[in-house]
């Protein structure tokens, strides 16, 4: 990867993506990684009808959960309480970080070990804790590599997918005391694991994300492959889990279909190595497990996406990452270009709610609407439709925008040039006589090359109208069936 790195700001989206597009090695690596993942997923869903059926089930489960979200959250709260799990509500990142800080101080914990959690990235946990002298150590191998290197995740499932093994070799040799330089993958993993074991032994607090919450049983479900999630949630005395309010489902029965959709879509695995179901702290007769379990439920814009019916489907997401693996845009610019916690198609539809539509205005337009994301999404989120709705919201502020907690930044992408252009288009194309005149003039001037002024011509020949429009040619044409010559040719010999 070139020395200059994409910045963590979605307003820099275009500059960021230019940086990656200009790096052929990085692009080749991305393409290879995405092909590998899409092939693995395809092998898990050999039968399109079976996939459609399972996806329908997953979609119904998630829609059912969202339709009953307030009740399910209340039920969850009761069950968690019965199970001895402390529940904290956090309206935004600052509130969530304050809860972490308070718990760390109460337990006098200078370090926390953390399993993979995108929501902790969303609130900037590591950075916030560091500012208060608390080390939050990533234990997912990919995240650990990034933390050592001061880099950001570029994928929600495989955070360090933009790093080559040579990169990792250098990072470990530089940052892990006593680690020699090696490009052997097994050895690299062993080095990382050794370094992390020490942290697990001493940390008082373990942090994790959550894949699903079960309202019926008050359980936290955690899906992982490396075992670091299980260590983070069982070895330290205190376990703090954090996730978004939308992650709840009604019953334990609902987990099985979502689990299989998740693992097959995410990594092409039939099952993962670990599936943790956490339903409380260590009990009197148990030999291990945390003495305290906390769950922080974060809103951070989710309830606003929830309130607008058109956008609610965004919250169905189970964060499998399949939409990014299949996205031709993501495959070319990588995850860092987006400048948001969640990149790719899911990032483009959720970031405007978590941040605002002003700073994220370039994300919904950065799609050819090819539909690959919507096709693979295991819970049937109509991602292209949501992208179009966000494009619209970026250009028009609706009365709803005036209401409290509506999508912030509506109308921010409104450009007067664009509005006028579409008004002119509408005038022309909604008045056939005017259009006919235009269709007669344009070919004669041959200056209709709208795109000629834009980036189009850097890699393409200019687009020019044909010499005579179809309607003009048809006006002077004799239909085939009245052409004598043809009739003759068709007569039986």
């Amino acid at each position, binding site marked *: 990867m070139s020395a200059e790195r994409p910045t963590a700001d979605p307003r820099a989206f275009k500059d960021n993506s230019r940086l990656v597009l200009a790096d052929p090695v990085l692009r080749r690596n991305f393409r290879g990684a995405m092909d590998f993942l899409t092939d693995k997923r395809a092998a898990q869903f050999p039968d399109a009808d079976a996939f459609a059926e399972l996806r329908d089930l997953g979609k119904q489960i998630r829609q059912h959960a969202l339709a009953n979200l307030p009740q399910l959250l209340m039920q969850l709260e009761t069950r968690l309480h019965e199970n001895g799990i402390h529940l904290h509500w956090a309206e935004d990142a600052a509130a969530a970080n304050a809860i972490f800080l308070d718990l760390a101080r109460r337990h006098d914990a200078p370090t926390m070990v953390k399993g993979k959690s995108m929501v902790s990235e969303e609130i900037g946990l590591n950075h916030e804790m560091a500012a208060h002298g608390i080390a939050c150590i990533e234990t997912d191998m990919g995240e650990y590599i990034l933390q050592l290197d001061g880099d950001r995740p570029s994928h929600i499932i495989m955070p360090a997918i933009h790093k080559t093994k040579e990169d990792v070799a250098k990072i470990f040799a530089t940052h892990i005391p006593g680690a020699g330089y090696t490009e052997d993958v097994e050895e690299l993993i062993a080095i990382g694991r050794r370094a992390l074991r020490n942290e697990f032994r001493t940390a008082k607090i373990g942090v994790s994300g959550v894949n699903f919450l079960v309202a019926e049983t008050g359980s936290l479900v955690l899906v992982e492959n490396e075992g670091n999630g299980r260590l983070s949630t069982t070895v330290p005395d205190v376990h703090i889990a954090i996730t978004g309010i939308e992650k709840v489902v009604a019953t334990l029965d609902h987990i099985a279909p979502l689990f299989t959709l998740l693992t097959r879509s995410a990594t092409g695995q039939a099952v993962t190595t670990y599936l943790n179901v956490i339903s409380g702290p260590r009990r009197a007769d148990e030999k291990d497990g945390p003495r305290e379990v906390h769950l922080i439920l974060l809103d951070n814009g989710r309830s606003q996406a929830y309130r607008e019916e058109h956008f609610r489907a965004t919250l169905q997401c189970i964060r499998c990452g399949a939409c990014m693996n299949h996205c031709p845009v993501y495959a070319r610019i990588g995850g860092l270009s987006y400048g948001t916690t969640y990149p790719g198609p899911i990032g483009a539809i959720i970031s405007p709610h978590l941040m605002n539509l002003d700073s994220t205005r370039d994300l919904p337009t950065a799609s050819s609407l090819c539909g690959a994301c919507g*096709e693979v999404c295991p819970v049937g989120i109509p991602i292209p439709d949501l992208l179009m709705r966000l494009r619209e919201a970026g250009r028009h502020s609706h009365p709803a925008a005036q209401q409290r907690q509506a999508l912030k930044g509506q109308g921010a992408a409104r450009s007067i040039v664009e509005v006028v252009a579409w008004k002119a*288009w509408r005038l022309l194309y909604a008045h056939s006589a005017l259009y006919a005149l235009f269709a007669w003039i344009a070919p004669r001037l041959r200056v209709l090359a709208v795109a000629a002024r834009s980036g189009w011509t850097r890699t393409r020949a200019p687009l020019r109208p044909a010499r005579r429009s179809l309607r003009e040619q048809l006006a002077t044409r004799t239909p085939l069936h009245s052409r004598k010559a043809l009739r003759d040719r068709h007569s039986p010999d």
Partner: protein
Amino acid sequence: MNPPIPRHDRPADVYFFATCVVDLFMPEAGMDAIAVLEHAGVRVSFPAAQTCCGQPAYTSGFPADARAVARTQLDLFAQPWPIVVPSGSCAGMIRHHWPRLFADDAALAARAAAVAERVVEFTDFVVATLGLDLTAAQNEAIALCLHTSCSARRETDALRSGRQLLNTLPGVELRTQEHEPECCGFGGTFSIKHAEISAAMAGDKVDALLATGCSRYVSADCGCLLNLNTTLEKRGEPLRGQHIASFLRNRLRLDSEPAA
């Protein structure tokens, strides 16, 4: 998973909805599609007041403008004839998105639905309804690739129809480019708003087509054709894409249009 394609008994008449891109940028594709339809014994009616399905504004976040334009197209198809569209993405727009575009007005929505259900993509119509006799087609050997637009692939049956058609044409060897289902990077205003990303996608698609060694590629979507052909032209590559109707006309040896 695609919705069923309307299968008509071979009609005596059809409407032809050319689309704005064909009208101004690739009229030969329209002329060739009409010639093929007429060759099969179908009378083709071109409502002169037609303009555009509204897709460009719709996908750009201007549904009100899209609606105003689409609204004027609702009156053009009075007879109960099939409406043949030589572009998968426009056919998809009408079939799938018009009903939603008019969702808040029951009367308009009903009219839009009545038009939408008669709309059929050209390749689908040729394969499912016309059942062309291809025995008279020329059989000179040619290696060909088929590029299907994303909307055609997902909202019509044009991929299957296109393959079936090309596989039954004598002399045609259909080759498959790497990442065949992937988008060519056109995406309407996307290609202007995010020109570099779009160009990277188009560049990769062109590389994949060139790598097959095919001497031509065909598509039933003019957006893709313009995107890829201008990319090839800029690179100085001789490979060109052609609308599938033009290729078909040529293989069927239908006489070309009299010089104007």
